[in-house]
C-alpha cells in the first residue's frame, strides 16, 4: 500500500491552488486561515515521509484489517447479468471506509503537534472512526453530530461514547450533517492552536478534499491489484459508489480517474424523489456556491441560502458534494445518478437476501442503481460497499413492518 503522492498532471486532480477546474479553494474566515494554511503547507511533505507511510500502512494492515476483500457476488451477478464485485469496506474495523482517513489524519495531527481532535459526523461512521483512532492514540476527542442524526443512529452514538469521545448535538438548521460540520468549524475557530479538525469527507477547504481522497485512494489501489489477480485485468468496466460529500467515491475512483475506459458512476441520495422537495441530489438540484469553505455544487435558494437536504441515510444527507466530484460531474468524467429512499431500502433487502450481507443505508444507494444500468454479461462492475448496515437496523426494521 502506498499513499498516492505523485498524481502527475491529471486534469482530475487538485491543482496547486487547491482547485479542481473551477471548484475547490479555501473560503475560510481569517480566524481559520493559519490552521488551514499550515495544513496546505505541510500535508504533502508529511504524507510523503517514509516514517508516516510506514505507520499508516502498518495500522491499515494490522488494526483496520486491510486489504479489504474484493468479493465476487455470484447471486447478485446472476440477477443483474454482469460480473459484480463488491469492495468490502464494510469489513474494516469500525465497519466502514471512514477509518482509512481517520488513521491518516490522526498520524498527521500527531506530527503537527496537536493535542485535541474534533470531527463532524452524519451517520456516525466517521465519528466512530475518529473516536477509535483518538482512543488508539490517547487524544481528546469531540464529535459534533446533528440532533436528528443522534436519534436515528443511536448505536453509533453509544459506540463513540464508549470509546471516550464527547458527542455534542448540533441543534441549528436542519440538525443534520451540514450543521454538525458548521459546529465543528466553529469549535476550530475557537480553538485554533491545539486542535486538529479531522474532516470526514472529500469536502471542506483545500487541502481536505485532496487529503481525504489520497487517504481513501487505498480503496482503488487495492481494487486494481485484486481485480488483476481475479480476472487478469486491473480495470473494470464500471466503478459504482454512493456520494454524499464523496469520500468513498473519491477513494474508489482515485486510481481510475485517468483510465477513460473505466466508467465511473456516482449515486446521490434522491430522497423522496429529486423534485419532491425532500432530496439530496446535489448535481441535479444545485448550482455553484460555497459551503464549508469550498466552492462546489450546492443546493441553495435563489438568494444563496443553503437548502436543507433530505435522505433516509444520515451519511448522504448533505446539500453539497466535494469539489473533486463537482469537477467530475462538470467534465462528464463521472456519471451521476440518484437513488430514492425506497430504491435504497429495496436494494438493502435484496443484498441481504442474495448475498448474506446487510449493507449500510448509504452503500445501498449505490447498489440500487444496478437495475438502471445497461449491463452485458461480460461487464465487470465494482460496487464500493462503503459500510455495514448494523447501525441502520432500526431504519430497516421500521420499513420491514410496512
Amino acid at each position, binding site marked *: 500500500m502506498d499513499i498516492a503522492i505523485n498524481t502527475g498532471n491529471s486534469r482530475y486532480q487538485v491543482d496547486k491552488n487547491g482547485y479542481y477546474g473551477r471548484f475547490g*479553494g*479555501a*473560503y*475560510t*474566515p*481569517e*480566524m481559520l*486561515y*493559519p490552521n488551514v494554511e499550515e495544513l496546505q503547507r505541510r500535508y504533502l511533505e508529511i504524507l510523503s515521509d517514509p516514517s508516516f507511510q510506514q505507520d499508516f500502512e502498518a495500522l491499515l494492515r494490522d488494526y483496520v484489517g486491510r486489504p479489504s476483500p474484493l468479493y465476487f457476488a455470484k447471486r447478485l451477478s446472476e440477477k443483474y447479468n454482469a460480473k459484480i464485485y463488491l469492495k468490502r469496506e464494510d469489513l474494516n474495523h469500525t465497519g466502514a471506509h471512514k477509518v482509512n482517513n481517520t488513521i491518516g489524519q490522526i498520524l498527521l495531527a500527531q506530527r503537527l503537534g496537536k493535542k485535541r481532535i474534533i470531527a463532524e459526523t452524519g451517520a456516525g461512521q466517521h465519528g466512530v472512526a475518529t473516536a477509535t483512532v483518538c482512543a488508539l492514540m490517547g487524544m481528546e476527542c469531540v464529535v459534533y453530530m446533528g440532533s436528528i442524526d443522534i436519534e436515528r443512529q443511536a448505536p453509533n452514538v453509544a459506540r463513540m461514547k464508549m470509546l471516550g469521545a464527547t458527542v455534542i448535538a448540533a441543534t*441549528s*438548521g436542519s440538525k443534520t450533517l*451540514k450543521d454538525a460540520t*458548521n459546529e465543528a*468549524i*466553529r469549535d476550530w*475557530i*475557537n*480553538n*485554533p*492552536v491545539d486542535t486538529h479538525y479531522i474532516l470526514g469527507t472529500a469536502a471542506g477547504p483545500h487541502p481536505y478534499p485532496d487529503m481525504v481522497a489520497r487517504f481513501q485512494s487505498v480503496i482503488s489501489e487495492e481494487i486494481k491489484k485484486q481485480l488483476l489477480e481475479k480476472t487478469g485485468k486491473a480495470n473494470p468496466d464500471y466503478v459504482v459508489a454512493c456520494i454524499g460529500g464523496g469520500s468513498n467515491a473519491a477513494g474508489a475512483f482515485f486510481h481510475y480517474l485517468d483510465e477513460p475506459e473505466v466508467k465511473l458512476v456516482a449515486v446521490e441520495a434522491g430522497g423522496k424523489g429529486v423534485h419532491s422537495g425532500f432530496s439530496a441530489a446535489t448535481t441535479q438540484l444545485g448550482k*455553484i*456556491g*460555497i*459551503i*464549508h*469553505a469550498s466552492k462546489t455544487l*450546492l443546493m*441553495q435558494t*435563489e*438568494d*444563496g*441560502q*443553503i437548502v436543507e437536504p433530505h435522505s433516509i441515510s444520515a451519511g448522504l444527507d448533505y446539500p453539497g458534494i466535494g469539489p473533486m466530484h463537482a469537477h467530475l460531474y462538470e467534465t462528464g468524467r463521472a456519471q451521476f445518478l440518484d437513488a430514492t429512499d425506497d430504491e435504497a431500502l429495496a436494494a438493502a433487502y435484496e443484498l441481504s437476501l442474495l448475498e448474506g450481507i446487510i449493507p449500510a443505508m448509504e452503500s445501498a444507494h449505490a447498489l440500487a442503481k444496478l437495475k438502471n444500468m445497461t449491463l452485458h454479461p461480460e461487464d465487470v462492475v465494482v460496487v464500493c460497499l462503503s459500510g455495514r448496515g448494523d447501525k441502520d437496523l432500526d431504519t430497516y426494521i421500521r420499513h420491514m413492518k410496512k
Partner: protein
Amino acid sequence: MQNRIDQLFAQKQHGILNIYCTAGFPQLNDTLRIMTALQENGVDLIELGMPFSDPLADGPVIQDSSTKALQNGMSLNKLFEQLTGFRERIHVPVILMGYLNPVLCYGIEAFCAKCAEVGVDGIIVPDLPMAEFEEEYKPVFEKYNLHLIFLVTPETGEARIRKIDSLSKGFIYAVSSSSTTGKEKDMSGQQAYFERLEKLQLKNPVLIGFGVKDKATFETATAHANGAIIGTAFIKAIEHSTDISGSVKAFVATIR
C-alpha cells in the same frame, strides 16, 4: 464623493463606536428604525448584517438573529429595497457584513453597483479570500468606491497583516481573540496582541471587535485602537424589545 468611512476617520480618530445589527431583525421592517436610532444616539458607524443560513464565524446569538431575519423574509433584494432612499435620513457610514455565497449568487458586480446606488460605504465578507479579492474583484470594488474591510486575528502573522493593510480600505477589523462572535473570552489577556497591532503603525485605522459588550470592554478596546465594534450584546439588548428606539438609546447610554 469621498467615502463616508474615510470622512469619519478624517474627522475623528478615537473612541469610534460601531454597532452591528442584523438586517430584518427582530422584525422585518425594524432595519431603518434601528439605524435611525443608532445615529440619533451618536453611534459613529453602522454594520448591517446580511443574514445567511450558515454563518460560520458567528456564535449562537447572531446566528439565531440571522435565522429569525430569514424567517421574517429578509433577503438581499429585500434589504436593498429597504435601503433605497435611506441616505435622505442617515448620514453615518454604513457597512454590510455577510458571507460570500449570497453575494456571489447576487453577482459581485451587481452587488457592488447596488451598494453604491443606495449609499453603502463598505462591506465585510469574512470568507472572501484575500488572493481572490486581489486577483478578481478589487477593480470592481474600486469602481464603485466600496471599501472592503478585512479581518485580522491574534494568530495572523505580521507579513499577512501588512498585506491585509495594503489591500484594506476604510479600516481593519481586529478580532480580539480567536473565536466566533459573542464568545465569553477575557479581553485583558489580549493586551500583547493589541500592543503588537499598535506598534505596526498600520495605514488603516483599526477597530476591535468580538468580546466588546459593555463600557469596560469598550474602553479597553478603544485604549488600543481607533474604536470598537459591538454586535452580540446589542442583539441581546433588542431581541425582545417592544420599543426599539428606546432600547437602542438605553443600550448606547451604557457604553458611553
